[in-house]
């Protein structure tokens, strides 16, 4: 029997005297309403399901209900209950309740009790946790209310069930004293420079991202700043002090985030931070000693374990820096295989425990400034439980990207590498250039074992050193599917002109492939060079080696020049020439025949000027009447020099002395009178050392060539000849025109010369010479 039924069935005088017709009274809950009924409406005992509350209030008399309604403590639409009531009976249906108060307390008005604005009462099915209760309570009284100011979305940290029951009713606490979501960025911006920001203890957590733009101190009081993706907290400028704070990226699956988004704390180069009890979930950027990729489980659940036996589990972690790892659970011992940094296998040893024990705690990873925590739990099951397991050293978690072993195996698998296959790798960590190696195997710790190879100037590969193990994470591996030529060759040839066979290669296959193509390359391109030079037989050419024995480019200032008489281009494109030596009169004589197998390693030039040996220049015995332009052939050059000697019986001072020690060193260092600089000595010695290496390490192609040294001026024979000749050469490099003061001896000579230089012609000739 519902209240409406009473309205229909009986008409009772309202004691309040306001209405004449009042329905039958609400029966006393202790009595059977069908049998007894009182004529006094005020004696009705009605329970009210008050909006915003979760319980029945009352029972109340009608007068009390009217009073509560007037005070706004209840709403007219609140549900009522009494013995025999029907679902959906509401306050306004109680006979004698003033309708005026109904208007006053309309559903959109503010409830006095909750202080919240009521929006709409619905019977939506939200009571999934309490279905029966809803079945009973939904129609009776707990209308779902959408409160103003209540966040639409649950914060991600609440996904594991922390909720902010803001505005939920008078029994529930509010988020803050104001009841609003606190904007941390505003608080930070309001904080004065070098000021302190104490986070409100009643708020608990703050949504990021936030940026600190001035030196401030944040006292977090163990509260969290969170964001779904990073950076959560950025420090742009100044020194920020963070204390008792947790900075969290709440997206557990970091694989869904970009690298930038996995950064929880981002400190720009112009900023610094000081930390105290700061916990981070995510990566850290810009903090010295804290950077790198972290990969560790968000939580570890060891599951249901067998009682009274010890257990062992393993967890693979990626920890970029040296850390301390500890756990707060008694009886659980952690052993880190490598706490220094990198891939770490954490061994979890658990002593035997009794049935029903639950282990709850945290693994804390402490680096220098920042800590990270991993909740860990386990349950010790009943001995009869079939689901219980025993830990025998299983790996229970590993980084999603994989451990080093997986990574290395994956690389090998992807590249389809077999033993002795050749591949190239680029050290991403150190920024090195490409290098080549012969694959050996993957070690049981995930290191890639390989044999490093070096490439000769003819692109052949040879074993360089002992096998080395590289961390696959630090390198970028590529299988070689084309030939790679030495830089010097490649530059001049142009990659497009080379026919590239597809890899991957074994070492032998590679070298075979190189041999097959090198001839063509040389012939084609040496002929091009020959055509460009238009040299004729007997012409004197100046050449300097551009590439050292390792294939590295020699800077122009360090290149040493020599002279040769061009003979011809061989049918393979090699330049055949005779090495020339200059004596103290400037005369050139043939020394040996050179067969430079790779013309692209040399800088070529026809001779445009005369050059005298250095020592001759020092003595000032050679004086050239006039500058003569080349190109020269050998005979014409020598004739010219002879003419000059005849003409100048008396020695004349030359132009101001300019030393070119590097040049001299390169030419054979035949000058006993001039000190050889240290650099030149070193270079010479290095050349000496490298020579056998070059000879010994040449490929088949090289061995076919006549045993001509790649740097003819460094040979013993050559050097001894040069020293005996004591020729002097003038350097024509621009830098040789520097105005360094002559040594004391020279100064004396110069003084003498100055006297003799009084003649006009000398001055003019000198001027003209240098002008050229």
């Amino acid at each position, binding site marked *: 029997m519902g209240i409406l039924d009473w309205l229909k069935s009986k008409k009772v005088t309202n004691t309040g005297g306001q209405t004449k017709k009042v329905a039958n009274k609400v029966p006393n*809950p*202790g009595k059977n309403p069908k049998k007894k009924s009182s004529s006094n409406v005020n004696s009705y005992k009605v329970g009210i399901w008050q909006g915003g509350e*979760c*319980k*029945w209030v009352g*029972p109340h008399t009608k007068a009390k209900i009217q009073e509560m309604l007037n005070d706004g403590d209840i709403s007219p639409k609140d549900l009522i*209950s*009494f*013995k025999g009531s029907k679902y959906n009976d509401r306050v306004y249906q109680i006979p004698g309740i003033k309708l005026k108060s109904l208007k006053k307390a309309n559903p959109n008005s503010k409830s006095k009790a909750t202080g919240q604005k009521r929006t709409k009462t619905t019977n939506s099915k*939200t*009571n*999934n*946790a*309490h*279905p*029966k*209760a*809803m*079945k*009973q*309570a939904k129609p009776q009284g707990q209308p*779902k209310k959408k409160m103003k100011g209540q966040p639409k979305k649950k914060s991600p940290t609440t996904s*594991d*069930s*922390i*909720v*902010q*029951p803001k505005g*939920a*009713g008078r*029994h*529930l*606490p*509010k*988020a803050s004293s104001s009841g609003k979501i606190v904007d941390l960025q505003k608080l930070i911006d309001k904080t004065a420079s070098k000021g302190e920001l104490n986070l409100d*203890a*009643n*708020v*608990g*957590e703050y949504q990021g991202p936030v940026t600190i733009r001035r030196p401030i101190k944040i006292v977090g009081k*163990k*509260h*969290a700043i969170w964001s779904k993706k990073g950076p959560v907290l950025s420090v742009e400028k100044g020194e920020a002090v963070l204390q008792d704070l947790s900075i969290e990226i709440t997206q557990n699956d970091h694989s869904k985030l970009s690298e930038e988004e996995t950064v929880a704390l981002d400190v720009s180069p112009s900023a610094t931070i000081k930390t105290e009890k700061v916990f981070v979930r995510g990566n850290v950027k810009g903090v010295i000693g804290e950077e790198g990729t972290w990969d560790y489980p968000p*939580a570890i659940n060891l599951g249901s374990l067998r009682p009274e036996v010890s257990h062992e589990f393993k967890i693979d972690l990626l920890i970029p820096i040296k850390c301390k790892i500890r*756990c*707060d*659970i*008694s*009886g659980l011992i952690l052993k880190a295989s490598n706490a220094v940094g990198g891939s770490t296998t954490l061994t979890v040893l658990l002593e035997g*425990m*009794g049935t*029903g*024990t*639950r*282990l*709850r*705690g*945290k693994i804390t990873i402490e680096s220098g400034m920042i800590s990270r925590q991993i*909740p860990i*739990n386990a349950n010790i099951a009943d001995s009869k439980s079939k689901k219980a397991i025993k830990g025998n050293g299983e790996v229970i978690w590993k980084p999603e990207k994989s451990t080093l072993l997986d990574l290395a195996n994956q690389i090998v698998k992807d590249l389809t590498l077999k033993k002795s296959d050749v591949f190239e790798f680029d050290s991403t960590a150190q920024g090195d250039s490409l290098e080549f190696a012969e694959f050996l195997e993957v070690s049981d710790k995930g290191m890639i074992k390989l044999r490093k190879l070096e490439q000769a100037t003819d692109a052949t590969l040879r074993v360089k050193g002992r096998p080395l193990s590289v961390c696959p994470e630090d390198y970028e591996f590529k299988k070689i599917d084309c030939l790679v030529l030495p830089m010097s060759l490649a530059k001049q040839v142009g990659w497009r002109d080379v026919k590239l066979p597809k890899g991957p290669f074994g070492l032998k296959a590679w070298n075979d492939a190189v041999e097959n193509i090198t001839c063509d390359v040389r012939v084609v391109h040496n002929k091009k060079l020959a055509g460009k030079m238009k040299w004729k037989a007997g012409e004197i050419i100046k050449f300097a080696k551009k590439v050292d024995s390792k294939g590295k480019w020699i800077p122009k200032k360090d290149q040493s020049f020599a002279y040769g008489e061009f003979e011809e281009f061989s049918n393979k494109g090699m330049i055949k020439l005779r090495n020339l030596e200059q004596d103290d009169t400037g005369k050139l004589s043939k020394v040996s025949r050179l067969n430079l197998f790779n013309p692209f390693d040399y800088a070529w030039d026809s001779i445009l000027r005369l050059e005298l040996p250095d020592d001759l220049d020092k003595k000032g015995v050679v004086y050239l009447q006039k500058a003569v332009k080349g190109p020269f052939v050998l005979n014409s050059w020598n004739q010219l020099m002879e003419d000059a000697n005849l003409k100048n019986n008396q020695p004349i001072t030359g132009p101001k002395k300019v030393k070119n020690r590097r040049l001299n060193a390169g030419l054979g260092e035949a000058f006993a009178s001039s000190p050889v600089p240290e650099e030149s000595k070193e270079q010479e010695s290095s050349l000496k050392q490298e020579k056998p290496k070059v000879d010994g390490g040449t490929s088949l192609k090289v061995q076919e060539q006549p045993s001509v040294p790649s740097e003819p001026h460094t040979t013993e024979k050559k050097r001894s000849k040069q020293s005996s000749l004591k020729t002097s050469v003038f350097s024509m490099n621009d830098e040789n025109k520097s105005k360094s003061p002559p040594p004391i001896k020279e100064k004396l000579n110069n003084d003498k010369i100055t006297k003799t230089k009084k003649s006009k012609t000398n001055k003019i000739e000198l001027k003209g010479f240098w002008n050229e």
Partner: protein
Amino acid sequence: MKKTATLHDGRKIDYVHSDNPPKGGMKEVHFSTDGKFALCFYHDQSLKDDNRILRLESIIGNFDPTKTRTDGGASRDQKSADYYYNLFNWVKGIIVAPKFGVLTEKFGANYFFKTGRFKGKDKESTWFTKPKLRKMIPNGEVGHFLGFLMLCRRMAMGLQKMHMTGLAHSDLSNKNVLIDPKNGLCQVLDIDSLVVPGIFSADVVGTPGYIAPEIIRTTNLATNDPKREFPCNWTDLHSLSVLIYEYLLKRHPLRGPKVNSTASAEEDERLSMGERAVFIEHPTDKSNRPGASSRDPSWKRELDPCISALGPHLEKCFLKSFVDGLHKPRSRPTATMWVDALARTLDLLVPCSNQACEGKWFVYLDGKKQKCPWCGKKPFGPFPVVDLHFAPRPGQYRNEGRQIVCHNEKKLHEWHILSNKRMDEYSDTTLLGDIQFHQGHWLLINRDLNSLVSDGGNPVPKGQATKLKEGAEIILSKSEKGRLAVVKFVS
């Protein structure tokens, strides 16, 4: 008629002498003119002897738990003293003139019926425990199961304090305990005849029905007979058990259909309460159990509810008291055990979904279908129950066999949070957390917990809440003695 009485220490007090004062077995009561004190004059003035005065001086002095030790009492601090002040109607003075008697404070207003047939009368236990009398009590004062449970705990606390001080009440009965079931309060009377074992012997053997069987069994022996049993701590414990049983189940634990003597009713009563006493819910001896098999038609009604409906903790205590310890006083559960059992049972209460239910609350029974034993109604729907675990070693939690039933507005205090805290007079009653059913979700709200950790391992700051989900494991406090709560839903 206004008169003046003189106290033992010389103070004088005015009182209204009534011609027809309220009378008890030993005393008649008059009230002071200001209405604050009750002057209890002994009927038998021969009781005034040095030994009695010495006993009363001790009771007023160093045995008085309503005063602190610094004030010459027995309580450790003022908080404890205040607690027992509300629990005991302690003797405040010795009246030497015009008659020998004791001065006590008048009971609080809540111990008098305000309305109904018994308006103005004090709330003796009998009104609430006898079914016929109970029906006469106004609805507003009849109380509910929760209230009875609370007052039982307070009564047990009082007796615990007495026993710890070295006293025994000797006459704990329905007459000597006033109750306020609506508010869960009680007050213990007749403090003047306290027994100090070995020093002050008992004046009385007790009230029938509450006297321990060993006393009844030996009443026929001479007082100097070494086999004669006198009221002491152990007999108090029997009285306490009977009272608790009566309060909670509204029947006497030993009164059943069994007839022990047909010679006379008195003899039958003496045997039934004495040497042949049998618990009516004895698990093996069904001879005294009411039910269909009973010959007496008045005992045909089956026992419902039984002690099993009161939860495992109380059931255990009742069995220990009325089965193991009925004739073996030393096997009876101590007052501390009762306090502990009652406190644990308080956490197992479920509000009845029936608005008109007499009990309003019932005890959650683990592993059984939940049904209100008073009205038979099932609860609303699934509700959370929390299994508490303590940490003997850091990080290792073990089930301590204690549960908390979560109902709307269930409050959590320090004795729920920390395993080394008990609910006693020293407890900090600050609200640390509470359970709310809000928008279809059960929430545990952190009111003042420093280190509440949610199921996901995240700290729950003050003012925020964590959802109670099936299987959720919530660390209530990260301190050394902090408990772990494991949530399960039952229906």
